[in-house]
């Protein structure tokens, strides 16, 4: 290959490289990433002693999520007056 031909080939390759570079597309929209809570940790409601408050009427076992849920569920169902009236 003659040097002039090499030069032409190199020039063509450079031209193609420049041309293709224009085809690239950057993301125009900012993608939101959910932040992480930065504050203090909170205790779970079932981790409290049922007797910790003066007016607690519900009963559950301290630290037992299931028993707390069933206590709240009982309270929740009391909002249905059809079951209370019948």
């Amino acid at each position, binding site marked *: 290959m003659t040097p002039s031909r090499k030069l032409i080939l190199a020039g063509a390759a450079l031209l193609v490289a420049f041309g293709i570079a224009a085809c690239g597309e950057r993301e125009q929209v900012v993608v939101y990433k959910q932040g992480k809570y930065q*504050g203090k940790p909170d205790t779970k*409601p079932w981790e409290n002693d*049922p007797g910790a408050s003066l007016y607690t009427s519900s009963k559950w076992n301290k630290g037992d999520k299931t028993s707390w849920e069933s206590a709240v569920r009982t309270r929740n169902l009391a*909002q249905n007056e059809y079951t209370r009236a019948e």
Partner: protein
Amino acid sequence: MARMKFLCDAERCIECNGCVTACKNENEVPWGVNRRRVVTINDGIVGAEKSISVACMHCSDAPCMAVCPVDCFYRTDEGVVLHDKDLCIGCGYCFYACPFGAPQFPQAGAFGMRGKMDKCTFCAGGPEKDLSEEEFAKYGSNRLAQGKLPACAEMCSTKALLGGDGDVIADIYRQRVFKRGKGSEVWGWGTAYGKPDRKKAQAGAKS
């Protein structure tokens, strides 16, 4: 347990504002802050007037959480959206983002300085020691830690406002609807997003 939710039955709400009062009393909310409000549409139009009690809806994908620049919001295991007032900078972004107008800002001083955000906590307190004085002072009552449900829902005289496990309150509401002689038609798109029948409303106003 599913997620904790509020559900207001517009057929039952009589705009007594008992929920608003119960919330104010339970949480000792300062003047100018309303964690809960009763909104009435078609006021004075016979047959078309409806009231609904609105507070923080504890959204599954809460916009307040998304926009908070200091990430002071968190979601509890029960699906309650709470925030840390020690982190809040009172910027008000959450107020603009919230479709329900739930975030409130206490104003103090001659220039109406905006304080730290305050909103409905589903009576679940906040990130302080449960049932402590600090928790009460910052966030109000923590009824969930006492095995109770929000005061607004439990005090509602007509039981229009239901609060608690989403599955349970949905069942209660469904039973009511069936008792009223209605069926699956009340669950549709038209009920949720349709416009009231204007002709009927106008006829009602004339009578």
